[in-house]
């Protein structure tokens, strides 16, 4: 079962579109600002990459596709359509496959929503980030709250499935303010919300400001209070967390992201995309060239953009499985850990975490408790050791 469980989680395809209108000061994703993008050339390269991955892992049934970025909502709908057609042509597309596209909630982009729908997209994830204009500006976002809410409404009128993101624990954010903002967000949410605590990432403008003392983020204690508020309010409104930062009405979870967290199989195409594909010798960790134009020429020259393609050891697979699986409220199957890692979890460590109330055993699964989630990184390090 350990060897086939990755299939049970489905097969996802991640498509990375690396361009943005501007760079947000907190973002460390692989995103680049360009005046003009030759979409035709890029489409050809995406098609080549898809065909290449299909040769590596033929015969898969694709259960989800995710356009991430960057800002995929800057793509022409026909670009999205061409990529989706290529995926369908190289693998088979499962009936009702989830096809998500990340979008900025601006009016310009909202105009393209119908085109995306026509191309086959059935789920939209909007980067709203805050319901406070001053904070949106501080986060470097180009939209207003009003514009974002209009985009959410437009998306909801076109797509059955809509999610949006908020960033909390922002500089100076008071608990009462977050409470109000979250209540407002839940009033607008249809089925799914991603709620991320602001993290100061390396090599970002926010990191420089933070180091210079010009950006103050909430203390550990204050961040914990905001976390607790988040859990309380989302649960009350029927949007419980199913993953550390992801909340949904039951049944409305992101199936694509579940592939990652359930440590399933996925292909990554586009600049700086990552994949985990299970091939003859085992699970491989793959990554492509990050720089968009270099990726383009690499693909044009070699037929693919992979610059990393490594077989993962048992220990590495065990680590990745814990790292991802324990983020889910459903937890992990310890037998699958054993199959992947080639060893069982240390019973003494498990027992100690259980007695501290950090993890629990439920119907043969091991899952992190409400007390354990806020300190998950320590719990994972403990279990993985």
């Amino acid at each position, binding site marked *: 079962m350990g060897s086939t469980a990755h299939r049970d989680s489905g097969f*996802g395809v*991640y498509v*990375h579109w690396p361009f943005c209108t501007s760079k947000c000061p907190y973002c460390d994703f*692989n995103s680049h600002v360009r005046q003009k993008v030759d979409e035709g050339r890029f489409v050809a390269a995406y098609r080549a990459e898809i065909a290449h991955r299909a040769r590596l892992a033929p015969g898969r049934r694709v259960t989800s596709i995710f356009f*991430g970025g960057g800002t995929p909502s800057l793509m022409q709908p026909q670009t999205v359509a061409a990529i989706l057609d290529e995926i369908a042509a190289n693998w088979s597309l499962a009936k009702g496959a989830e096809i998500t596209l990340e979008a900025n909630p601006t009016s310009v982009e909202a105009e393209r929503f119908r085109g995306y729908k026509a191309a086959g997209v059935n789920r939209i994830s909007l980067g709203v980030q805050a319901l406070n204009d001053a904070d949106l500006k501080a986060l470097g976002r180009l939209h207003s709250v009003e514009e974002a809410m209009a985009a959410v409404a437009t998306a909801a009128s076109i797509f059955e499935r809509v999610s949006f993101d908020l960033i909390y624990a922002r500089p100076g954010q008071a608990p009462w303010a977050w409470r109000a903002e979250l209540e407002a967000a839940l009033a607008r949410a249809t089925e799914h919300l991603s709620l*991320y*605590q*602001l*993290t100061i990432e390396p090599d970002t403008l926010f990191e420089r400001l933070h180091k210079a003392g010009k950006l103050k983020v909430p203390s*550990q*204690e204050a*961040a*914990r209070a905001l*976390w607790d508020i988040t859990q309380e309010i989302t649960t009350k409104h029927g949007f419980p967390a199913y993953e*550390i*930062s992801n909340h949904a009405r039951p049944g409305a979870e992101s199936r694509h*992201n579940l*592939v*990652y967290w359930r440590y399933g199989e*996925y292909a*990554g195409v586009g600049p*700086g*995309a*990552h*994949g*985990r594909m299970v091939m003859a010798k085992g699970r491989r*960790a793959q*990554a492509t060239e990050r720089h968009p134009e270099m990726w383009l020429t690499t693909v044009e020259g070699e037929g693919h953009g992979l610059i*990393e393609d490594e077989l993962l050891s048992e220990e*590495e697979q065990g*680590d*990745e499985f814990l*790292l*991802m699986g324990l*983020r889910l409220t459903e937890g992990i199957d310890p037998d699958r850990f054993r199959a992947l890692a080639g060893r069982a979890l240390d019973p003494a460590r498990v027992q*100690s975490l259980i007695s*501290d109330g*950090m993890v629990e055993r439920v119907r043969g699964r091991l899952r992190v408790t409400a007390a*354990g*989630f*806020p*300190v*998950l*990184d*320590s*719990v*994972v*390090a*403990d279990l*993985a*050791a």
Partner: protein
Amino acid sequence: MTTHAIDNIRNFAIVAHIDHGKSTLADRLIQTTGGLAERDMVEQVLDSMDIERERGITIKAQTVRLGYRAKDGRDYVLNLMDTPGHVDFAYEVSRSLAACEGSLLVVDASQGVEAQTLANVYQALDANHEIVPILNKIDLPAAEPERIKEQIEDVIGLDASQAVPISAKTGLNIDLVLEAVVARLPPPKGDEAAPLKALLVDSWYDAYLGVVVLVRVVDGVLKKHQRIKLMATDAHHEVDRIGVFTPKMMDVGALGPGEIGFITAQIKQVADTRVGDTITDEKRPTAAPLPGFKPAQPVVFCGLFPVDAAEFEDLRAAVGRLRLNDASFSYEMETSAALGFGFRCGFLGLLHLEIIQERLEREFNLDLIATAPSVIYKIRLRDGTEIDLHNPVDMPDPTRIELIREPWIQATILTPDDYLGAVLKLCQDRRGVQIDLNYVGKRAMVTYDLPLNEVVFDFYDRLKSVSKGYASFDYHLTDYREADLVKMQILVNGEPVDALSMLVHRARAEGRGRAMCEKLKDLIPPHMFQIPVQAAIGAKIIARETIRALRKDVTAKCYGGDVTRKRKLLEKQKEGKKRMRQFGKVEIPQAAFIAALKMDA
């Protein structure tokens, strides 16, 4: 068959404070007399260990035979013993001195007399040496040869009018040093017709030759193939190689009275030889052995544990190897609940401890945790038995103890006047008793009686820091005195951490306990639960700190593209955990042990 002077030989040592140029002078003497070709010359020729060259110190005594044609036209054989300068190696100095008739006293012409200068020169005087003062570094602008001469006369009481001004670095007046050795130091005396009587000065293990024995012949002749007897151990051997150091090994047919050289004789291990023993002829033994030396006794103890428990066997092999060449270092296996398997080791002093630890880490590639240094406490139990306590962990229940005595030292400290106040305060804080205070030129010389257990705990570092590096320090053990000592334990999450327990004076316990808890609070990372850190004497808590529980430690975003990076972070965390000690439920980083034990209360 009578004792007479062996006129063409001079045996001499060089004594000096560390950094005053002893090894450089030895280099110049070897070079000037042609002992080594230019291409073989490296700095500090006689300091063969890397650690000696790097730190500029001499640990093992070395010897070299120099051929010298003097101004009087005669050829002389000069045997130079290079001796360690540091107090920890005083026993090495004393036995080297016993093999010589005279000493060169090297004093830095700008720094003047230091604490170790005094200690070493007194040893040379005890050995009835003729002493020639040498003023080194006179090429430096800060040199004040006239003032330093006065200092030598005032402080040591030696006639310095004939002191030789030199620069070992530039080679200035090295010829005058050689002439002074010939003219002013006495030749050895001996009787070549008498039965063999030779002093076993030192021995060491050589990977190719086995045990090499350094000897000084007093009477008679030592020859190749001779059957010899080591008198103290009554071991019999045949000499299979005999020679001298030039400093390279050079075979000779025999060594006569007054000569210094080496032999090998199929001796299995260094422990089979006793330094100070008398070597004589098996068939025709000498009537009375030489007086010999007291064996060096370890005075400072600490536990050494591998950071990675899997390296215990490597550590065992390494301490065994070091012990082969350093009989003054002792060890026995020890088990600690906190640190696992390791060794309780005895050292001649703190420098010795540091050097052994550094050699283990460097030459054997081991990562070590050293526990708090301890001394030997003498405990009398109520039932009348006396025990020596080397390890605080073994302390009997206080109700069984009638009294505890601890070792005291007498310390001599020389310091510039500016720092005298701070030095006195440090000594007072360490329970010191002032014995004397006077001036050597502009420098104060203080004599203090101090409990050794206060000195092993960071005293030397503190002294250097309060005097900005200018104070010099030397000490010797004096006696044992009764003291109100208690065992202080450190409890982490309610569990005693044996590696951190220590014997401390009752009056100092609270301060040290508080400092230790504060330090540990910063050194132990927060866990998923709150951790009390306490210092206790018996059941009584004397200090407490709390490490607060982690409140938030979770990665907000983790998707398909983040897995590799997060996995690499996790691998680092796991690696870090391997280097921690699991203690109950608490993981204590090894750095915490090292830093907590270095701390000064």
